[in-house]
């Protein structure tokens, strides 16, 4: 409230300043976010709804959509479990190398996605450390679905943990300790105390994790091998179609990814609106 009052009380000169900043921010967002987003849909529907649906119905497009869903369906739950475990370790335990673990969790954010893909080629590629052993046992990782899943897990690893850590730090462990004193076992404590406290942050982390898992390009491009209909996820299929002069096809698939982004945003906004009190109560500094 105080911020609103300040702007009302401000002199005309300052009000003008505020207006300029608001207009600047809006124009910036419009040019850099809304316009490109709109152009995706304009290009996708350039030749009408029928052409749009036809290009989405091609076997390669359907295969790319299925593969993207499969990769996300494996990577996101794993990172959900890992994210909770990592956040728990970071906020509930004191141990040697805790700072190092915190830095490691952030590593995928700071490393270029191309490198994230290449390390798996170096490890599991035919010339890589484990390549000959894998080949001898008929296990395919690179240029196959497992490689795509590995690269995606690596890239999306920080999302859940990074949402949970600040919240769990701020909440402290008093409620959990109380539950233990009252006789709850570890699992009961987690389900009835911890989980309800972190659920919205957790859901938000999962949403972001999923959006990135489905949208990742760089790392999966390195390990994919670009086999049409077999190892191409939606972002890779977009690039391929663009390179094949199939602009409607490229932007039709891009529009699905854009829809995913909009849906993520909508759910996030809904959560914040519907459960704002609860989120505020649990948010850092919200006590």
């Amino acid at each position, binding site marked *: 409230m105080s911020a609103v009052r300040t702007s009302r009380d401000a002199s005309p000169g300052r009000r003008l300043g505020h207006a300029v900043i608001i207009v600047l921010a809006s124009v910036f967002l419009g040019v850099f976010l809304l316009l490109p987003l709109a152009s995706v849909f304009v290009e996708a529907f350039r030749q009408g709804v029928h052409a749009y649906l036809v290009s989405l119905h091609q076997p390669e497009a359907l295969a790319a959509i299925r593969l993207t869903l499969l990769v996300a369906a494996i990577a996101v739950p794993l990172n959900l479990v890992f994210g909770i475990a990592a956040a728990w370790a970071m906020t509930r335990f004191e141990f040697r190398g805790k700072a190092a673990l915190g830095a490691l969790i952030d590593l995928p954010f700071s490393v270029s996605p191309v490198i994230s893909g290449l390390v798996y080629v170096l490890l599991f590629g035919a010339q890589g450390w484990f390549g000959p052993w894998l080949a001898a046992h008929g296990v395919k990782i690179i240029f196959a679905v497992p490689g795509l899943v590995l690269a995606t897990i690596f890239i999306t690893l920080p999302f859940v943990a990074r949402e949970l850590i600040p919240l769990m730090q701020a909440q402290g462990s008093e409620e959990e300790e109380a539950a233990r004193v009252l006789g709850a076992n570890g699992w009961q404590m987690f389900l009835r105390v911890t989980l309800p406290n972190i659920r919205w942050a957790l859901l938000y982390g999962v949403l972001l994790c999923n959006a990135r898992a489905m949208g990742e390009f760089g790392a999966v491009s390195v390990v994919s091998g670009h*086999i*049409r209909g*077999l190892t191409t996820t939606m972002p890779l299929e977009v690039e391929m179609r663009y390179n094949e002069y199939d602009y409607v096809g490229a932007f039709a698939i891009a529009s699905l990814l854009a829809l995913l982004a909009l849906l993520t945003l909508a759910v996030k906004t809904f959560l914040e609106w519907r459960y704002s009190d609860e989120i505020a109560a649990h948010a850092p500094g919200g006590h």
Partner: protein
Amino acid sequence: MKIRSTLFAITGTLLAASAMARDVTLLNASYDPTRELYRAVNTAFAAQWKAQHGDTVTIQMSHGGSGKQARAVVDGLPADVITLALAYDIDAVADHGLLDKSWQQRLPDNSSPYTSTIVFLVRKGNPKGIHDWNDLIKPGVQVITPNPKTSGGARWNFLAAWGYALKQPGGNDAKAKAFVKTLFQHVPVLDTGARGATNTFAQRGIGDVLLAWENEALLARHEPDGDKFEIVVPSISILAEPPVAVVDKNVDARGTRQIAEAYLKFLYTPQAQEIEARNFYRPRSPTVAAEYAAQFPKVNTFTLAELFGTWRQTQAKFFADGGVFDQVGPGN
């Protein structure tokens, strides 16, 4: 009775056919501009194989810069056949023991079923007046070519420019080097593959001239907005021979040698040569070439062997780390 025995015969044939027919998949790792070509070739080959052997063949494609594709096969991409932009990239795969080093002698015409050359694509009306290689280094001309380190087409571009300078009166290696160095000062972006470079030029509108595969330039001209461009044929260019090979180690592991070899031999048949010509690759078959002569501009070409020797020698001299390209490329 007759009907019954006929029915038996039909059922019997169907059963026999279904018992013998297999579903086979092949993976063809190819370079960038062959997407449209192999889509058509694969359909034709699958139909022919089905008619002759009853098997259903699905040919999967992987496309990318030629050097990048060779690297992927070395790293374990299970390609049955590789159809790349130049012989060195297949040599590189052979060096890792995936196929025999004498692979280029296994099929006719240096294992290149089709050829192409390097031409210029300019904007409509040729506003910068580009007619030959020396026009590329005029002030204010921006040249689009991909990176020779990753793109096969770009290596042909580089060698075509070098060959032009070499063949000028008094031309020698030093003059060619100076010419190519100046040329690369006119290059604003280096894409990793030929198709990326075409998009940079055609879709994003960057640059005044695109050094392009002839097939890629002709294809861009035949796109819906192709009349925005013109093809310029330089006084001399290089005969590009994109080769094909079966990857021994992969076909033997997968049991696909017979069909993979048949697939590559199919590329030399009149039917496939026509498909190649229709996709703007120059067919080796004289009869098909004569039939499609009107489609291809007359180009005065030299071969790699005439000016540079083998691809191994060329690669070592020009494109290896510390080679000529590292001395004259962008940033020098």
